[in-house]
């Protein structure tokens, strides 16, 4: 039997801030039958550069192909892929819980506190709980709350992460490009 080498990879993609790139990037994944598990897009610390954080299950060979094909798009600055061990990872989740159910079962509140989750709204109908942590912890909290039959709504953000590496690849690369630009002129 062939060994399953599929795992969750995180792709960090930096691009110029131009319209229409998101669909180009997602098309690179979908065309190769790779489903995107989560997606976060925002401005990055580098002026003018946008950062895409994409997670997807695939094998390492496919992760390499996806990275090079994304990088091939004209307005993409850089793309890299990482395993969870190489990143500081966070996700935010919001839970809308039934206040009467919480009142009835005191274990709900103690469970929420044991996860260091914050209660950010309480009224007689519902309470809102927010937690920012590693994705597996969110899933675990959700599973337990679900068993207590008190979850009205649940939402998770896309993954955000920063690399553990001491090298800032994008900045170094941009410096090289800037030198090349000056040499071209």
């Amino acid at each position: 039997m062939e060994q399953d080498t599929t795992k969750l990879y995180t792709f960090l993609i930096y691009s110029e801030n131009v319209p229409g790139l998101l669909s180009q990037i997602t098309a690179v994944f979908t065309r190769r039958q790779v489903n995107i598990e989560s997606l976060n897009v925002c401005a990055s610390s580098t002026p003018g550069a946008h950062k895409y954080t994409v997670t997807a299950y695939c094998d390492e060979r496919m992760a390499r192909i996806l990275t090079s094909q994304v990088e091939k798009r004209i307005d993409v600055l850089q793309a890299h892929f990482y395993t969870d061990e190489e990143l500081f990872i966070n996700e935010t989740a919001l839970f809308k819980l039934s206040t009467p159910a919480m009142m009835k079962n005191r274990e709900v509140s103690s469970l929420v506190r044991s996860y260091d989750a914050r209660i950010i709204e309480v009224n007689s109908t519902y309470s809102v709980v927010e937690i920012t942590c590693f994705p597996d912890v969110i899933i675990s909290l959700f599973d337990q709350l679900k068993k207590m039959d008190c979850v009205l709504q649940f939402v998770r953000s896309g993954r955000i992460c920063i690399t553990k590496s001491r090298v800032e690849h994008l900045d170094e690369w941009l410096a090289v490009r800037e030198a090349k630009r000056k040499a071209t002129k």
Partner: protein
Amino acid sequence: MSEKITGAEALMRALEHEGVDVLFGYPGGSIMPTYDALYDHKKTLNHILVRHEQGAVHAAQGYARVSGKVGCAIVTSGPGATNTVTGIADAMIDSTPMVVICGQVGVAMLGTDAFQEVDVVGVTSPISKWSYQIRRAEDVAWAVARAFYIAKSGRPGPVVLDFAKNAQTGMVEFEPAEVDFIRSYDPDPDLNMTDIERAAKMINNSVKPFVLVGQGVELGNATEELRTFLEKADLPCGTTFMGLSTIPSDHRLNMGILGMHGNLGPNVMTNQCDLLIAVGMRFDDRVTGNLATYAKQAKIIHFDIDHAEFNKNVPVDLKVWGNCKETLAAVTKLLDTSKHTSWIEGFKPYAEKEYEKVIDKALHPTEGPLLMGEVIRKVSEAAHNEGIMVTDVGQNQLMACRYFKFTQKRSVVTSGGLGTMGFGLPAAIGATFGAPDRTVCLFVGDGGLQMTIQELGTIMEQGAPVKIILLNNNFLGNVRQWQEMFFAHRYSFTPMVNPNYELIAKGYGIPAKTVIERKDLDAAIAEMLATPGPYLLQCAIKEEDNVLPMTPPGANIDEMLLEL
């Protein structure tokens, strides 16, 4: 303050600034302001009115392939734009530099499902190198400069400019823009001397080296560098279809064609060499066959300018990133002058076997109907092997690639990656504009000709000197061959009921002749080539002939069938 002009007029000046001299196009509602501006630029921008927008893009491709310049097509919005999609995808997979300008509804109408509105950028983004919507007249100069820079630099490809109507009519002070640098795009990577040295060392240590030559060498204007590279270290090579004219057919180091319908020797030796050196090619499945058994015994070096091609299909031991004009020259300097005589001699028995089993029969039949191979070789020789070979897709293409001979570079115009039937006729028109002093020979089947047959109208209007060799076997021949081989002779919708092509040609004022008997072939070819302007030579070809040798799809590349 300089004068204000319309965005459409700015486009004309920007195209002139880029050195465009020929445009293939078709007008329509959303591009009318641009066509109005074009009316005043007829002397510098030679607009060729095609008969269908697909013809415009294929003609631009043919022009680009033979001239090395950027082909340019101009069409209207909606259906005009969607009709170019096949040509854009074709140019993308075959790395053809092209700029396609599509009209678009005004920005105020975008997203309203307006008349002839299509999301052109959305449709073309995945199949183009860059696709951009020009929404303001102020953006014309920049967008055109960037489009041409992207189309022709690095690994060339098609660029789409979606030109909103308000941007065509808006007023702007025009200054031509220059784009020779894009921060996020590096088409000209610096030489990595470590890789160059490693490549030279691997080649110097190789006893059985084999070079795979792709179109990238011609695209990088590196045919001379390749030749020096091969000759210095005595390296035998095989070419892809797209790379056929990179090295003369009769060069002593040219062992023939790679892949499914290529030559026996190069395919067998791919799986016997100790070092495979791929230059400007992308290990297409038609070249490699079964990847699990492809060149497993060999170390592999890959020279390419497109970084995304490395390790895409075939894992390689060394990648040499850059323009092969520079990388090949740098490696050549470090190569030992050597001889691989006995290794090269090893190709000979396979060539002899293929000649005896296949080639001799294809070129020198003594009885029965005409065969494609003999027609193609005679045309090639009558044009002193200096002609441009344009093909459609199917058996005509495979046979033309096998039997046309090349002495000049930039002589191959074929739809290699996409396999676009209907490509041939319009691409041949484009080739006559891209290389007006050369003989353009189109080999086309009775299926493909009818897919874009309306372009006979363009040929008529322009007097474009396309020599059309119609290889008529009353079948969609290649599909029929596969049905014979893999679908138990069940000829599902491949027999063709054909019109009278001579009459059609005559309707367009194109001289035409049909050859049925072998004894009439030489004279007919001579007459075709001696006749100024276009000509249609219909050859009645054996109906159920097969292209051999063949590696069945998915089979090991060294297991070619020489006969059925």
